[in-house]
């Protein structure tokens, strides 16, 4: 794990400085800084291979960066992580509520006994994410969107200060994706949890984002959406002309070259 920063800053839940990662000798991230204030939603935006998941794994503390350091909450209870998807046998004897329960005591040793006192917290987490109706179903039998809600309940049940979500919108239809965005917004309002979320497209997330880190070519453009989501900043990051288009009260980022009116 990277060395913790000597001084803790109470104004940020997570602070990363000078993160550089090489995978197989190839630089994936180069000198990336990121601050996550309490209760903020921070988007890590970039194409496949831009280093979003790599950065997320560094922030999570399960990938050691080549250089740089991360100041983060205690991993066991302080950080909740939601993977993009899980591959579980449909017959696997784990119910949705068992998965959420593991968010409280999964790192402990021994056969789980005396879990009745944890039930309330599990039910609360399932209710918060709207997963009560499939709480007793086998996780392997649920749809991708349902599994994601269960994993989100697993992540928040320990009342973490920070949530990290890997591509939560990637495989959802537009309506479900909007529901997840609304849910994330509710969660941070209710509990003050800070949320870092990766996505390859910013459009759906932008209304709730406080900060954004645009990743391309190993570098990051970090700041408020107003500071980053601009033609000049994104063009400099991608090293090619980029356009930010406002339409139907939404914001779209497109590459500007090669698409011209006849």
């Amino acid at each position, binding site marked *: 794990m990277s060395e913790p920063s000597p001084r803790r800053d109470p104004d940020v839940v997570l602070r990363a400085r000078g993160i550089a990662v090489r995978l197989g000798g190839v630089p994936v991230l180069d000198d990336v800084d990121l601050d996550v204030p309490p209760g903020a939603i921070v988007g890590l935006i970039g194409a496949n291979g831009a280093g979003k998941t790599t950065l997320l794994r560094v922030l*999570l503390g399960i990938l050691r960066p080549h250089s740089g350091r991360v100041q983060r909450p205690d991993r066991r209870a302080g950080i909740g992580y939601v993977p993009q998807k899980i591959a579980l046998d449909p*017959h696997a*004897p784990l119910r949705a509520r068992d998965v959420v329960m593991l968010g409280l005591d*999964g*790192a402990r040793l021994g*056969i*789980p006994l005396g879990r009745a006192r944890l039930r309330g917290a599990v039910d609360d987490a399932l209710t918060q994410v709207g997963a009560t109706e499939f709480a007793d179903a086998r996780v392997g039998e649920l749809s991708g969107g349902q599994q994601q809600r269960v994993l989100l309940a697993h992540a928040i049940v320990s009342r973490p200060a920070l949530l990290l979500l890997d591509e939560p919108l990637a495989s959802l239809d537009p309506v479900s994706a909007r529901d997840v965005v609304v849910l994330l917004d509710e969660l941070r309002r209710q509990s003050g949890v800070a949320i870092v979320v990766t996505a390859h497209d910013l459009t759906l997330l932008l209304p709730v984002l406080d900060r954004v880190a645009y990743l391309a070519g190993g570098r990051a453009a970090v700041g408020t959406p107003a500071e980053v989501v601009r033609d000049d900043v994104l063009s400099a990051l991608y090293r090619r002309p980029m356009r930010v288009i406002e339409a139907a009260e939404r914001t779209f980022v497109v590459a500007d070259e090669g698409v011209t009116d006849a």
Partner: protein
Amino acid sequence: MLSAFFASPTVQTALVVGSVVAAVSGIVGVFTVTRGQSFAGHALADLGAVGGSGAFLLGISQLWGFVLAGVVSAVAMEAIGTRRLEGRDVATGVVFGAGMGLTALFLTLDTLIGGSSNAAISVLFGSLFSLDTRLVPVIVVLALVTLMIVAVIWRWVSLETLDRDLAAARGVPTRWASTLFLIALALAVQLSSLSIGAILSTALLIGPAATALLFTRRLGTAAALAAMTAVVQVGVGCLVSFVSYDWFGGSSWPVSFTIVAAVFLTYVGARAVCALRGFAHPTAVA
């Protein structure tokens, strides 16, 4: 006839060892099926057979050969990465094929040099009815060690099965979790190999677990149900093998066959019951 069955010292040893081994196989099997590691179970049986057959040449009990080869293979497989092994069909097939080849060589040498004419039957099809009673305490201790490993890493493995990064994020030492599980799996498979043979050992691992998973969504219940199912199957297998002696005038059905037949028939029966009741895949959400 039942009194003769239970009065036989051979049967008593077989029932004690068989029940202990069955319970361990059932419980470890539930985790194995859940983790999608049946493949690793087969691999460990193949590689364990190298040790089991080699043991005759060294003049030690095949139990030690099975266990040593199994545990060494488990640690090596974890070091290479079981997920990666599954993705490399060809290389994996060559290595395990070589293992079986080595077993064939050792078994031939056992007969030629060691004079152990029953080595092949013993290694490939088990020795439940010909066990040295002095090994019984050792087998029980190994079984208890296996169960203790599973009990200790129960929740670690549950989380790690769900997602490795997720487990790591919760502070689970995932490397330890998966290595310890693979060692428990190796021990369960080798004890099963000793009883019903290297070729059939995974039947006792996968069959009862797969049957139990049809009927429950809970991990603890599934483990208990699989253990009980396996114990009954081994008991029934021993009984049928014992009484079949009378059916064929002095040559009984091999006990490994009757046990595996019980495992197979139970699973087919359970599937049929589930199909009739629409029970196997209870609809998660309407």
